[in-house]
């Protein structure tokens, strides 16, 4: 009997090992090349990265990781980082926080204790808010690719980001509503999520300022809620002409948009940067005309872009991973380039010099999500673009369209 027990365990363990090991080939290759460069005598600068690589938020962290790895690969292939005392290769020390604040704090402390001075992370505002004070008190540069909460950085310190601030996106969205002459708008958001509720706060404040009436406001319990029909039913009966929906693309495509249309809401659905990539989550067999009249505020548009950094990013991303990048990829990719640019300007890779270089608000960064400089809180000053989806009858597909460049007056 004992034998059978052991046998079953061994089988289970083998299964687990074999299944997980098939996914590891690309990681092995990356690790090997890192070792090789060290053997060759080249010095290495290690960037820290923290993000939810496993658990329910893994999709954000793994995309951050892809962006960081792609950027590092490109920079190393192009010869590395040139500082005042020589050329360095880049490497990344990537830690998993599982979307939990305690794990995030542990990872941050451990990275610092391992001598890492430049950290990219974390993916969510909740986790990032737990480590900003460590970055400031320990003097380590922290650059968050997707922590959008206003409060993450309120003065110039060691914390920077490459994404929008919630209030800015909310204002842009309200600006669009005002420009188009909407007077009655609704909001459907998630009260338990920092991103969604932060955007909702900013949008409704901006609406109040611009004299737009919020006629109905409904919330859902989680960002992965499956049913929105009741919420949109309320929107229809309140007579909202436009509904602000700060959700991510993974629920917009399969759930929110078709359900909103199914209860008869024909107005504009206006989202924020999380809505980008909805075209990848439209179910086959769905009624594609539902995806008309969906707009969202975004960082950049390949159509409106004046530089070709965005285009080359998308090209190399697709070549490496075989699918189109999302904002989590792009913003993490940019974080690496921003750090490298700051390092090269400072001529050093220690936290104090990099911070001083980043704190120079006159410096302009040209990265894949647009051209920007930091404001006095370490948040990029970018203009947003308004994009949307349109059903194209000729090709029977949903097209992403760029509408206009937005800025706050």
């Amino acid at each position, binding site marked *: 009997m004992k034998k059978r027990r052991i046998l079953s365990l061994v089988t289970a363990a083998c299964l687990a090992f074999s*299944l*997980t090991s098939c996914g590891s080939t690309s990681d092995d290759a990356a690790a090997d090349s890192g070792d090789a460069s060290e053997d060759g005598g080249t010095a290495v600068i290690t960037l820290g990265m923290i993000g939810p690589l496993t*658990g329910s938020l893994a*999709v954000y962290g*793994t995309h951050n990781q892809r962006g960081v790895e792609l950027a590092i690969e490109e920079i190393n292939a192009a010869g590395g980082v040139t500082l005042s005392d020589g050329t360095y290769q880049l490497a990344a020390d990537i830690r998993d926080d599982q979307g939990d604040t305690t794990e995030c704090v542990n990872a941050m402390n451990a990275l610092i204790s391992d001598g890492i001075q430049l950290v990219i992370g974390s993916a969510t505002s909740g986790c990032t808010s737990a480590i900003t004070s460590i970055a400031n008190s320990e003097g380590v540069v922290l650059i968050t690719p997707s922590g959008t909460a206003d409060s993450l950085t309120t003065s110039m310190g060691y914390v920077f980001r490459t994404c929008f601030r919630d209030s800015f996106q909310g204002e842009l969205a309200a600006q669009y509503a005002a420009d188009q002459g909407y007077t009655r708008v609704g909001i459907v958001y998630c009260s338990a999520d920092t991103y969604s509720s932060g955007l909702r706060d900013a949008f409704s404040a901006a609406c109040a300022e611009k004299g737009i009436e919020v006629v109905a406001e409904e919330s859902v319990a989680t960002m992965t809620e499956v049913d929105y029909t*009741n919420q949109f039913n309320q929107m229809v*009966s309140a007579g909202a002409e436009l509904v602000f929906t700060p959700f991510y693309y993974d629920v917009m495509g399969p759930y929110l948009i078709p359900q909103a249309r199914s209860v008869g809401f024909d107005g504009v659905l206006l989202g924020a940067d999380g809505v980008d990539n909805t075209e990848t989550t439209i179910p*086959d067999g*769905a009624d594609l005309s539902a995806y008309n009249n969906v707009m969202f505020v975004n960082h950049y548009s390949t159509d409106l872009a004046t530089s070709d950094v965005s285009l080359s990013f998308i090209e190399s991303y697709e070549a490496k991973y075989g699918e189109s990048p999302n904002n989590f990829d792009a913003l993490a990719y940019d974080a690496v380039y921003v750090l490298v640019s700051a390092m090269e300007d400072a001529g050093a890779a220690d936290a104090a010099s990099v911070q001083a270089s980043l704190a120079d608000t006159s410096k302009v960064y040209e990265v894949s999500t647009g051209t920007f400089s930091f404001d006095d809180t370490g948040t990029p000053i970018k203009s947003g673009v308004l994009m949307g989806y349109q059903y194209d009858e000729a090709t029977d597909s949903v097209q992403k369209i760029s509408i206009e460049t937005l800025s706050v007056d």
Partner: protein
Amino acid sequence: MITFIQFLITGLRLGSVYALIALGYTMVYGIIKLINFAHGDFIMVGGYTLFFTIPLLMGMGLPGWLAVIPAIVICACVGVLVELLAYRPVRRTGNSLTCLITAIAMSFVLENLAQAIPAIGPDPRVPYTLFADTISVGGVSISHATIITIAVSAVIMVALYLFTQKARIGCAMRCVSEDKSASTLMGINVNHTILITFAIGAGLAAVAALMYVSQYPRVYTTMGATLGIYAFVAAVLGGIGSLPGAMLGGLLIGIVQSGANTYISSSMSDTFVYLILIVVLMLRPAGILGKNVGEKV
């Protein structure tokens, strides 16, 4: 009025899925008295199988819903594997609490294993939408998928009832649930019977997965956790072990959730679902249709 009808339809839409999942839950519980926390994750396994097989079948010119057959096969295999690798050895050495904890651990294993498999990974996938057409009733539209789900649940409920009452192996299952050692004496192979129970329960999860993804077309590795808990609540609410109870509990929970969404507070609907559960358990500790079995001294 439209609001009211819409709330009912949404409630049925959610509830029918919960009911279908709860049927599998309650059947396994009825036989081996184990809350199979991994049941929700069987749905995830079924969902991913459907994601991969529906386009395959449609490419061959077959109707997409036939993909439920490979899904049933794969889910049943996973169910049998879980029983053989974890539950059976633990049942031999442990007590009901260790079995429950093994079930929770198994649920974590399946979720994380799925994330670790490169073809699945953490990115959510959107499967093909089947039964997407709608019919209009009095100004509101109801999707074919909702109607089919309710019909399928009813058919499965009746079939399961007949199976456990009439079929030989069904009778063996009931016997095992009453008294394991006595059934051994009656010549029933207990382990064999439990294995079949798991295979059927997991197969039901595959059917539930088909209906779930046709209404809510998105699969991701942690989808089983929340779904499983709702289905479990539904099964307990209706009276765990009772097939009509599971159906009733599922529909009730869907309607309560939808009603709380519409009329009270949409972000607090979870609270109302659990409040209903608590109130029902206070009044009828064995659930709405459950039998209250007295304790033998």
